């Protein structure tokens, strides 16, 4: 997973390095294993690294940047031909990125109009195969930026502005907020924007494929202060929590959420059943998103550091524990061990605010391995016992569907065994 960012200052007085730094910081919950910045020079220059300090190189008034959840060379490509230089940055590792860049340079050498070159490159790729083209950011050495949201629309792209001075394009509205900008538009799938010093215009390519926003974007990936395609992430999560609470058929004393993502779900849940919502855990050493970590050991370390329990709140109580999703169950297992043995809860009822995950993601937006998916391998009775829970509930597909419909959303649910939720 990733966060894309492009900042275009129309006034050359700006040096964007610090601005890009904070913009990337507002996106690092989407992955912080690889940072990338590209700037127009004589040629386009890209610098990547494991540290946000790469933003120091983002000098100048035009920058394309990104942060990724894993290190991969095929997330971006830079090349030059006949004085034209271009960087292509994809929302995720893309095996065709080299080929795409070459084709784009071909087209750019045929036409002086970079946007037309980009459009014809996309259509050539579509002719060749109905293959997945990810959302892309392109930077040229003529200081042009082209941003484009994939036909699939699995991840969002939002356009913002800062006064008369800057256009900001980001995977999430948080970066626009943090840079003091105003959110202006959520780009539609297939929609894009061309920005240069003296011209900026929106464009749309073809018809969007029959595809929706990835449910994980709203479920887990976006920050709860974000607005995704016009939907408040916080409201959406609370509403799923309310739906989830309808499954409760036992008495509980209190409701807790797995930090941090699941807190809005737990709040919605608690408000619905009229029981107190409590903060059950405190984190040590800053926030890390455990689900985005590839290495299983690092992942477990991150979980352990996030989960020091507030014992007095929980000891001897009947606890409803809410989480947004359950992939391998390793986080939940860890928490249940903490709650059972270190705290001594009386009852543990686990509520998952999404349906059971049973398939891989065909678009590789979320890295899932079927043999590790708890719901794909364990019966519900076995899962309950493994997690040492008194009960285990998943939100039904119908419940997600009704919430998505209420927002007019169409959400991709392939890993949950359904094409779409909503609309």
């Amino acid at each position, binding site marked *: 997973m990733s966060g894309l960012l492009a900042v275009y200052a129309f006034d050359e*007085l700006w040096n964007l390095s610090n601005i890009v730094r904070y913009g990337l910081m507002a996106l690092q919950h989407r992955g912080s294993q690889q940072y990338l910045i590209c700037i127009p020079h004589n040629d386009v220059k890209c610098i990547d690294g494991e540290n946000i300090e790469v933003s120091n190189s983002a000098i100048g008034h035009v920058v394309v940047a990104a942060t990724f959840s894993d290190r991969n060379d095929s997330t971006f490509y830079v090349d030059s031909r006949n004085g034209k230089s271009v960087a292509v940055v994809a929302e995720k590792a893309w095996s065709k990125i080299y080929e795409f860049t070459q084709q784009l340079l071909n087209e750019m050498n045929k036409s002086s109009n970079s946007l037309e070159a980009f459009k014809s490159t996309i259509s050539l790729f579509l002719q060749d195969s109905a293959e997945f083209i990810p959302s892309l950011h392109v930077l040229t050495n003529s200081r042009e930026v082209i941003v484009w949201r994939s036909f699939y629309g699995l991840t969002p792209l939002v356009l913002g*502005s800062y*006064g008369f001075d800057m256009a900001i394009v980001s995977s999430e509205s948080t970066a626009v907020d943090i840079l003091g900008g105003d959110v202006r538009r959520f780009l539609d799938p297939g929609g894009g924007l061309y920005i240069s010093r*003296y011209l*900026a215009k*929106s464009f749309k390519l073809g018809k969007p494929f029959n595809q929706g926003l990835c449910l994980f974007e709203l479920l887990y990936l976006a920050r709860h202060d974000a607005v995704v395609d016009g939907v408040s992430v916080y409201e959406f999560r609370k509403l799923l929590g309310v739906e989830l609470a309808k499954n409760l058929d036992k008495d509980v004393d209190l409701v807790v959420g797995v930090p941090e993502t699941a807190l809005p779900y737990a709040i919605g849940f608690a408000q619905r059943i009229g029981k107190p919502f409590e903060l059950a855990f405190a984190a040590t050493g800053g926030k890390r998103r455990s689900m985005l970590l590839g290495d299983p050991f690092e992942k477990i370390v991150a979980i352990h550091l996030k989960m020091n329990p507030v014992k007095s709140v929980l000891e001897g109580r009947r606890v409803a524990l809410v989480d947004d999703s359950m992939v391998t169950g390793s986080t939940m297992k860890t928490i249940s061990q903490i709650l059972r043995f270190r705290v001594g809860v009386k009852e543990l009822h686990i509520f998952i605010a999404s349906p059971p995950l049973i398939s891989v993601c065909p678009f590789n937006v979320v890295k899932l391995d079927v043999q590790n998916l708890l719901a794909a391998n364990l019966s519900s009775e076995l899962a309950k016992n493994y997690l040492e829970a008194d009960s285990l509930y998943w939100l039904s597909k119908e419940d997600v569907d009704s919430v998505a419909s209420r927002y007019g959303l169409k959400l991709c649910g392939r890993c949950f065994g359904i094409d779409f939720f909503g609309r």
Partner: protein
Amino acid sequence: MKVLLVGSGGREHALAKLIRRSTQEPRIFVAMDYRNPGLEREAVETGGEPYIASTIDPEAIAKVAEEISPDLIVVGPEEPQFHGVTDTLREKGFIVFGASMKCSEIEKSKVYARSLMWKHSIDGRLYFKAFKDIEEAKKFIEFAGDVVIKPARQAGGKGVKVLRDTQAYLARDRHVVKKSYIEKLFAEMEGYRDIDYKILVEQRVEGVEYTAMVVTDGSTFLQLPLVQDHPHAFEFDIGPETGGMGSIQGPGWILPFINFDEYKKTMEIVSNVLKALMAEVGEPYVGAFAGQMMLTGVWGPTVIEFYSRFGDPEISNMVPIVVSDFLDVLDRAASRRLAGAKLEIDEEAVTLVKAVAPAGYPGNKKIASGHPVYIDEARIKELGCEPLYASIEMSVDGKLYTKGSRIIEIVCRGGSYEEVYKKSELAVKNVYSLDGHPLFHRRDIGSTELLADRIRVAEKVRVVYRSRAANGLLGKIFVWIPGEGVFDNPLIGFIR
């Protein structure tokens, strides 16, 4: 009736269209800086004549006027007013519609306008500080926070830097830009010899902007319907400030995001300013006047700046909806007989103006100038829209060339925003670049999405200003500096 129109752009073309509909069978003479094909045609078709003259040269314009001996002279733009054209014409005994040099100070000097509002305690005023000296300005900006930096003189509606500075972590970066911008602006303002103060640092406000225009003879104020202009160059309110890329109006006297109380309050502010101005200069204000307003959480209706003339492109919105004899209105204002005059408009209609500009506008006039264009007027008129020629010149070869600013304003009318939006998007397609140089317009202006945004923002600031009003805090911003005291001054920033 012989009318001399002074000015070269889209505003004057709109005025010519409004004037020629009069029952007084006007012959329109035009004094313009370059051959505006639209104005030229209005003149020829009405039996008048076009003149090429420097519109900021009082003597040159007086000479044209003496040759024609018109019954009424209408001075469109602000620069001729600043340069004394209206005064010279009046001294020579002509009946003139247009603010005098002294009255036009309200537009020319933003310091004058702001000071006037403070002196007379007029609502909707913002905190500001003005500078003659660059070092003093740089020293002040060292500690300034959430501000707007403007040229102290009207400079074609450009040069405003809006720097939201509510994030301490980016304060230093913005500070660097503030400083270098002040240097840049001082250098640019050196060219103007007619003003003491060079730059203005002003409290930043946010909300929705709109323009309130009036016609006055110094005692009667005749209100025009509200209009909203769109200053950002590019779609979705992105990019540099322009003179305006398009404007919306209607239905009726207000806009969908401004209510009648706010309209009334706005007109109260506008008339209070005119009264205060006349008391200061000791002259009647004769001509058009406009408040560039913003509905803000600080005040509700708030003054951003004033125009001592009709707004451009705002006046273009009037072309399809004015029912009254507009020439009669202008004539009565100019001869100070406006009392009892009424301005009737089509209150059912919605109007939408879209400007088309060459790439390069507004930042680089050189890149934007000298490109041949073709305008398929017949197709535009088939759609029921009216093309108004602006920064476009007819050359000796009969071709039209861009002059660096907005080339044309196309005004359409309809029964709803949906209808007028569709029409105007079809209409702007009939403006062609003949040398491949890109032309642009804003597709989003007049769209229901943008309108919904405006309504949402207006609702938000309405909640804020009403609650501030209930607490007696309208216009006030307190800053507490421990050890020094509480100051009513929002220009103080994070850096200390």
